[in-house]
């Protein structure tokens, strides 16, 4: 955060109109605590600036478009993590669910009507979400174990399924390719899906009864029970929602990657957790939001580009990536939390 501080004081100049006896550091902290996304945006800008310095001219319209395209699937999966983490849970099955829907879509669309293929592709998503929800909400299995288990089962089923369709081959529907990679007057088409989706998630968390319950359940489950909340209902609805979002992400991702495989979205799982954590959502529940998560996903995507152009060996790159994620998360919590 050594680098962040001088810049972090920048937004102060707009608020510090009245001279106050409070020391500057404290005012900065107060400001950050009230607007937790500000330090994240600053960090994002810093990363982009470093990139531009290291490789002058790299930051252009095309690069921005590509970054957004790759950040969107990560951001949606991180949305699943944000919502589950608000209740003190986690959803590790999102990678498998995304892969399954993508793979089923790509193989079924060869012989089926796209609408039928879509329904078939979303079925495992709903099913896995339902099983996760019942496991966590009714049988109280720890979400980590529950979603890890369904994830393994899903992967196994997919391998069995693969044998049955090996002859028919696969193809990427044009529409998904258009959505995943297409650009219309400078804007990636994926934004057509992502902007309404993100708005819906933000609205759900802030302004609906369901969103309120996610925060409340994660904060104090006993209190919600005494207020009449039925935990299993909230949790089941939550994990189904999360799984459906993951399924949609898979369809978007296959349009972007264009190569169906059995581990398509798996590499996104842990970054999606990291994006939510960097975005300020507490894994202990009750605290966080989706706006931060979106910025977190962007930060991780830019960071990946940055580490790639440094042309470091893969091992060193991963070490650096891990260190930066840890450092950013720790520093961010220090800045944002007042206690």
């Amino acid at each position, binding site marked *: 955060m050594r680098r962040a501080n001088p810049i972090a004081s920048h937004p102060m100049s707009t608020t510090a109109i009245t001279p106050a006896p409070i020391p500057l550091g404290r005012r900065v902290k107060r400001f950050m605590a009230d607007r937790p996304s500000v330090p994240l945006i600053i960090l994002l800008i810093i990363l982009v600036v470093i990139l531009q310095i290291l490789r002058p001219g790299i930051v252009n319209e095309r690069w921005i478009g590509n970054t957004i395209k790759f950040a969107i699937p990560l951001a949606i999966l991180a949305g699943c993590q944000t919502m589950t983490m608000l209740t003190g849970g986690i959803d590790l099955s999102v990678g498998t669910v995304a892969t399954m829907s993508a793979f089923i879509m790509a193989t079924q669309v060869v012989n089926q009507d796209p609408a039928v293929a879509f329904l078939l592709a979303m079925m495992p998503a709903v099913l896995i979400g339902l099983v996760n929800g019942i496991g966590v909400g009714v049988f109280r299995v720890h979400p980590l174990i529950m979603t890890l288990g369904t994830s393994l089962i899903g992967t196994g089923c997919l391998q069995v399924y693969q044998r049955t369709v090996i002859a028919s081959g696969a193809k990427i529907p044009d529409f998904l390719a258009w959505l995943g990679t297409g650009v219309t007057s400078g804007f990636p088409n994926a934004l057509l899906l992502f902007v309404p989706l993100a708005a819906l998630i933000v609205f759900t968390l802030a302004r609906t*009864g*369901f969103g*309120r319950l996610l925060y409340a359940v994660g904060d104090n489950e006993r*209190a919600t029970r005494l*207020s009449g909340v039925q935990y299993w209902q909230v949790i089941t609805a939550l994990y189904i929602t999360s799984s459906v979002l993951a399924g949609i992400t898979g369809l978007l991702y296959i349009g972007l990657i264009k190569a169906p495989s059995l581990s398509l979205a798996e590499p996104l799982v842990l970054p999606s957790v990291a994006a939510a954590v960097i975005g300020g959502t507490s894994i202990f529940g009750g605290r966080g939001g989706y706006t931060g998560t979106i910025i977190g996903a962007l930060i991780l995507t830019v960071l990946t580009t940055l580490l790639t152009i440094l042309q470091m060996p893969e091992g060193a790159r991963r070490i650096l990536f891990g260190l930066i994620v840890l450092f950013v998360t720790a520093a961010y919590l220090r800045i944002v939390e007042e206690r």
Partner: protein
Amino acid sequence: MTTSPLLDASGVAKNYGAVAALRNASLSVLPGEVHALMGANGAGKSTLVKILTGAITANAGRILIRGEARDIRSPAAARRAGLLPVYQEPSLIPDLDILSNLRLTGTPVEPFRAWVRELGIPDLDIRDTARDIPLAVLRVLDLARALAVEPDVLLLDEMTAALPANLAEKVLEVVRRQGDAGRAVIFISHRFVEIAALCDRATVLRDGETVGVVDIVPGVEEKIVELMLGTRIVKTHVAARSAAEKTAPAPARPRIAVRNLRVGTKLSDVSFDLADGEVAGVVALEGQGQDELFAALAGSIKPSGGTIEVDGQPVKFSHPIDAIRAGIAYVPGDRSEALAMQRSVRENIALPFSAALRNWGPIPMRRERATVLSAIARLQIDTRAQGEVQRLSGGNQQKVTIARWIAADARTILCFDPTRGIDVGTKQEIYKLLRELAGHGKSVLFYTSELEEVQRVCDRVIVIFGGRLVDIFPVEEADEPALMRAAYGLPRGAKADIGILADPTANASDAPGATP
């Protein structure tokens, strides 16, 4: 009584921040004596016990064991000094068998077995896992384990609670013989019957101070009640109530009718009515079954027997939502149980609105704001720090827990010790609020650990002792001495209780106060 005491503690004080849990407590136990330690809720009994057994360290005071000053800094040190406690909660490790549990504490096995037989359990297999053994037996095993190492001073905390009569009798017998063997027992109990049958002397604590040491003789319970109450024995009068706080006219049928309610071993055969427009007080010492009564009425636990009727309809609650739908709201005593601490005042008050599946959609923000604001205004919650409930003062947090149900317009509110640990001003506001609710035809069931509150707030008093309802009486008769006596299971009215004291074999649960 000229022998030197086995244990002599004096001037013991303990502060938690600004709160003094103990000011000047003393306890002197002679060899061969069974010594009762008594005091009302919050008098400092448990703090003193924890200090004596090394669980916490005193801020001041002197503890002599056999005339030698000892610095008891840990439970192990207390054990070495010859002081051994048996707590209310079983202390065997559930996943180990009994033999391993004994080895863990270095308890000799043969004496342990002998004591277990002595205590009335002839067929114990010490290879059994502790988890599979019933609670009552576990408590007896705890006692046997303590007896097996032959401590100088044995400290028993509510030893007979949750024990069936035959085991309790054996336990009392063995404890009595400990005294005869020249060792000493400190006996903590709420039951006068047992104390009368067992103890030689009693030390009484009040507000963290030792206020008296009395010999147990017939009729002494009056003296003990007096000591526990102190100067507050002056009879208070029912505070004059304004028109708004007056009780609404008595309705034809009760709002809630409880009949023969039973919850496990904690509560049995409880019957009472709660009418619209009344505040019914529940008075009980700690752990007499009141927690289970409230939890059963709130739908948090399922009763194991009896019926609950709401507006004449029998109900079975399997989740708090069922009780809430019937208009019954529960305000727990522990605020951390009721509040989402990181969320705002508004979200906490509005929490019940979102509970039902059909209310999961968009929140009508303006309407919610109006409802919440009116509840905040009604309770005068200081919302300067409303962003997160955890930043509010304790009193304001408590108000939020109540405001939630004012906003939800619950017809019946179950208030469990709502004034614990909050400032005097807020307490007054809560009394006033509860009266107002009754004035508007709502009903309130109000458990309080502070007896003086009963006359300020309640219309009737329900007294629970040992899991049974022992008395119901009108507020006019509920002055503090009467409540204190009733809470200890002593019969109302009669001053001379020689009958009870003279009958040491009487079972605590059915003898005292069953007939008003």
